[in-house]
């Protein structure tokens, strides 16, 4: 088992690198840079500090945009789950907002917030909030009646019922929905940074192309995006393993 695992972990990337090298060798160098060229570019970006600066800028934006969206959407979703009339009143608006690509908000966000962090944070917020409201609504509606009945039996007020029963009971579904939303938000951020700001990993890629078709830098930027995105997703995955939500795995089995 251990051997086949190491083999898989080593062999697949090696095979990928070999194919990459092969493809790069058979094409004009600026279309597909060699792995070596990309590694050099990556280390150069790391050394002169611009990689760190861009990663920090991107992670800063996604953190704030996503946090604000959660703080806004989760309470709203819970409220809508409990009050049918408000839900029916707001539902058309939510359904209308959701299919609008967050990228379509770029002109407005630049107009309202200028070129900079707040514009990107706003984009992430608008990309996440409507989906998170609907995810919360679904997660709360799926909470077993038996838990709510038990909570009511113990004399909980509505606020306590939400906090001590409904939120923890909905947490597993909520967290897995948040994880998916975060992944979408990350791809939206990179696209947004190509247009609305002048820093971040998306900007790095755009800038490398505009500054004389430096495709080695473009590849290095793409690789960084993949790695940071993977780390963000893994961090959300860790949250799903806490005792608070791990019970749902046993429940499903």
């Amino acid at each position, binding site marked *: 088992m251990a051997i086949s695992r190491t083999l898989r972990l080593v062999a697949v990337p090696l095979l990928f690198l070999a194919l990459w090298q092969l493809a790069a060798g058979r094409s004009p160098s600026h279309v597909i840079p060699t792995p070596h060229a990309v590694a050099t570019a990556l280390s150069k970006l790391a050394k002169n500090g611009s990689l760190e600066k861009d990663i920090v800028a991107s992670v800063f934006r996604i953190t704030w945009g996503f946090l604000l969206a959660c703080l806004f959407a989760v309470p709203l979703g819970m409220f809508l789950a409990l009050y049918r009339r408000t839900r029916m009143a707001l539902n058309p608006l939510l359904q209308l907002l959701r299919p609008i690509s967050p990228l379509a908000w770029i002109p407005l966000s630049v107009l309202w917030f200028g070129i900079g962090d707040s514009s990107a944070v706003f984009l992430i917020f608008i990309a996440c909030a409507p989906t998170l409201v609907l995810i919360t609504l679904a997660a709360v509606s799926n909470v077993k009646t*038996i*838990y709510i*009945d*038990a909570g*009511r*039996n*113990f*004399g909980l007020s509505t606020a306590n019922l939400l906090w*001590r*029963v409904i939120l*923890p*009971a909905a*947490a597993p579904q909520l967290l897995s929905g948040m994880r998916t939303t975060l992944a979408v938000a990350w791809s939206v951020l990179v696209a947004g940074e190509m247009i609305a700001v002048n820093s971040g990993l998306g900007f790095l890629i755009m800038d490398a192309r505009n500054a004389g078709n430096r495709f080695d830098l473009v590849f290095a930027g793409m690789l960084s995006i993949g790695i940071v995105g993977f780390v963000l997703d893994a961090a959300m995955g860790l949250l799903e393993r806490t*005792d*608070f*939500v791990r*019970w*749902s795995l*046993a*429940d499903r089995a």
Partner: protein
Amino acid sequence: MSSTATSAKLDSPKVRVRDLCLQFERNGKQEKILDHMDLTIQSGEFVCIVGTSGCGKSTLLHVLGGFLAPSSGSIEIDEEEVHGPDPRRIFVFQESGVFPWLNVEGNVGFGLSALPRQERTERVRHYIHLVGLGGFEHTFPQQLSGGMKQRLEVARALAMKPDVLYMDEPFAGLDFITRMEMRKELLRIWQQERKTVILVTHDIDEAVQLGDRVLVLSARPARIRFDVEIGIAHPRDVSSPEYLELRTRILDELGIGHRI
């Protein structure tokens, strides 16, 4: 019944159900579930309600617990009308209602957040041990067996020191041996705590083994068809003639007969 006012007060029943009806609207039709029920239950009494599947016995318990409002009639507990669930009366659900995100200790202490810390810890400890879950304080429900989960739910209910315990087929999901053990445990705890217990079951043996009194419901719409005192002292001999006779009578009342 009683001639003087004082004894009337003393004799006043714990639970008094008057002319209780419940109907639901289903596909535009009014469907009668509970039909003009009258019932009184004394404090400390252990009452078992049996009936065929789907007769409305579980619905009756939910109405008594305040989870469903009756269509007409009234339920009074301690001469006070029931308008909703109340922490003085705890419901033990058929399908485990313990909170899977809390460990054993967290579940038992769930309803006790108003108590001072010391008293809370003390009471949680007491009831965990009473149901035989000592040593499992930090275990989560998904790591407990079905029987242990059911004990946990009973402990959580008892920790509230309720005066009425509603139990909706609490042992239905357990295997035969665990079920027998749980009955013994429940009797032991009831003899120690003397709560009023109203237990719904489809298992006639369970009813005759546990109850001071057994109510047999008719098929839907449910009416109380038969109300019998089980005058056998605990521990009950399940092969004694009295036991078998009561069992047979209840089977007859359910219209099942006792021969296959």
